[in-house]
């Protein structure tokens, strides 16, 4: 049994869960949803075991140079997939939004596929990464990214829901795709709640990164592209949180802001790694 095998099994389960949740969109049979959701739970379980196993393997292969599986692009994508599933599970337990899953699972699935397309080799850490801050920093950042991903999915679902409410004059219950989305208000609330959680985690991620940069390079902030983009993401969500309490920013506008925030998050994670150069070069493929 290797971690790679477990990640492959996870991919299969995630794919199955995704297909089932798509089918649920069409047929709306609770059984289908339950099966799809169960596949997502199994995926999270197998993925957790896989990450644990990779951690163990790193000690087996590298001896005392073993480390938590959070050190390169491959491991970060797998962890991203794990955090998306985890946050989705938490949100589901609180709000039971049945169709959010059909938007969330593809994200977790493609993150895992992205990981599998990149270099999976286990290497000992270079000096800059040898720090306890590595774990805290990556852990908080990716949980934050995942919360923003869920918020974005809720915002998209919200827009679909409102669009459907607007466009339908004679509603045909059961025929319309968006009609089975939870009420718009719940989706808006999920969007907001997930962003609050994400904002706190991103703040902790930036702070731990900053403390680490101070320790490693002697500068807690140096306007490196990764730092700049994490601040951009932070400012967008800060604007989101403030916009919600001021008038005029409700409904669709706020949903679009959440989507824009996640687009910036993705650029901060992927765009900066592949398009801009900087201190985070070990995060690239």
């Amino acid at each position, binding site marked *: 049994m290797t971690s790679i095998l477990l990640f492959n099994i996870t991919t299969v389960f995630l794919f199955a869960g995704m297909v089932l949740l798509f089918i649920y969109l069409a047929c709306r049979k609770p059984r289908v949803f339950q099966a799809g959701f169960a596949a997502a739970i199994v995926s999270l379980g197998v993925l957790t075991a896989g990450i644990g196993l990779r951690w163990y393997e790193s000690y087996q292969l590298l001896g005392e*140079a073993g480390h938590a599986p959070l050190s390169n692009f491959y491991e970060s994508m797998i962890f991203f997939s794990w955090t998306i599933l985890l946050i989705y599970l938490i949100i589901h337990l*609180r*709000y039971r939004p049945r169709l959010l899953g059909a938007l969330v699972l593809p994200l977790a699935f493609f993150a895992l596929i992205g990981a599998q397309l990149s270099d999976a080799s286990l*290497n*000992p850490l*270079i*000096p*800059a990464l*040898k*720090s306890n801050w590595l774990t805290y920093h990556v852990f908080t950042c990716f949980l934050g990214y995942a919360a923003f991903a869920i918020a974005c999915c809720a915002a998209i679902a919200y827009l679909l829901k409102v669009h459907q409410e607007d466009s339908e004059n004679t509603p045909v219950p059961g025929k319309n795709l968006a009609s089975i989305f939870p009420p718009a*208000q*719940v989706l808006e*609330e999920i969007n907001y*709640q997930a962003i*609050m*959680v994400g*904002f*706190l985690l991103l*703040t*902790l991620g930036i*702070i731990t990164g*900053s*403390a680490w940069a*101070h*320790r*490693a*390079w*002697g*500068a*807690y*902030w140096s*306007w490196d*592209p990764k730092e*700049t*983009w994490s*601040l*951009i993401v932070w*400012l*967008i969500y*800060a*604007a989101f949180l*403030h*916009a919600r*309490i*001021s008038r005029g*920013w409700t409904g669709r506008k706020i949903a679009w802001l959440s989507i824009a925030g996640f687009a910036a998050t993705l650029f901060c994670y992927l765009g*900066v790694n592949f398009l*801009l150069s900087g201190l985070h070069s070990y995060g690239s493929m």
Partner: protein
Amino acid sequence: MGKPKNSLFQYLGSLRLSIPLLFVIITMAVAGSLIPQNLTGEAYRKLFSPIAFKVLDKLQLFDVFHSVWFISLLALLALNLILCSWRRFPIVWQMARSRTAPLPAKTSSRIFQQQFQIPAESKTAAIARLKTSLQRNFASPREMTEDENLCLFAQKGAWSRLAVFVVHVSILLVLAGALIGAVWGYRAFVTIPEGESVAQVRLSRSGEVIPLGFEIRCDKFNVSFYDNSCRPKEFKSLVSIFDGGKVAADHQPIIVNAPLTYKGTSFYQSSYGPVGNPTLRIIARNRATQKETTHLITSSEAAPLPGSGFFRVVRFSSCFQNMGPVAIIEVDPGEGEPFILPVFRNVSDMDQAHNRGPFSFTLSSFEQPWYTGLQVNRDPGLWFVWSGFIFISAGLLMAFGFSHRRIWVSIFEQDNRAIIHVWGDSQRNPIAFERFFLHLCKILEADLALPEEEGT
């Protein structure tokens, strides 16, 4: 005409300024991340047309984060935060401290309501029961009168209303720390060859040379690699510090992620490089007699071989692919053509494969003098920044993890019935609060319906 002044003051401390301001800062930051920053004029001229270069340079877009524009925007944001807190604090402080609150307007959309009725004669007993029930299931209630009716008020998490100020003041603390660091601190860089000392460093931004106030010596630099690979394992400098004739630090290590701090100045391992050519210890073994000779040689010299001929080092690398240090030597055996040979340290018998000439060669060791490159920094604003960071985290946890929840229960008589009206509101998370509210109403109703003897 005091009005316009007052409204400007209000605008500067309002969200009408904050949100657009945040978007302007975001735009500047995006520009600063996409346009390469702080390159030389030459490098920019290659990237941009002369006109674009002129415009971007004039707009200070080649150093966005230190431009007048950007600093002014941050200052405006700080002013916005200060004025906003200044205006809002007394109101929120009052809200967080007060033990009662007026009954909410019935039309307010964020208010949850429920009502039920009991016979009027049991009103006094009902009040006592409601009090106990609220106490047990939510928070200790206070009595108040609204429109001559009795009303109970209970709340939880009122203090979390203050969290927003904790966060905002902490952001100001971080900005203040950054300002203090920029004015009274510095970032500098120094390279020290092994065995040598320096007493001054070069500032990273201006290039100005400033005295340290003490002397730092690099005793030794060492780079180690993971077995046989070129993946660096550790960069380590050993340094000594001399201050006013006494030894303040003796052979102290500086490695990446573990800097050395002396009198508020910190030294970080940042880079390294060779000083001059390495001295190689190469062993030549006569294949026929098995006799070994050891040669200490630098890459500029040629070493004579026993008998006839000589060899010299053409190139040397301390790390070649995954085979460790390698020397490329040229052997001139005296008779026949000279030939080129790689000589390894970690890979033995490599030379056997070549099997040319009367000698086989091994690289036994090498001595490379290094210099170490240290980032030097002094930042008196650091503690402002760290405490700001801690309070921002604590404040956000307080703001998002808790919510100010309030419950009002009013009791009034009507047509021989006592009508009990429950109101509730929550600062955030209305969906979760609604669930709680409905649950609480059920409990209150059930507690009121208990038989007399059990309820008292």
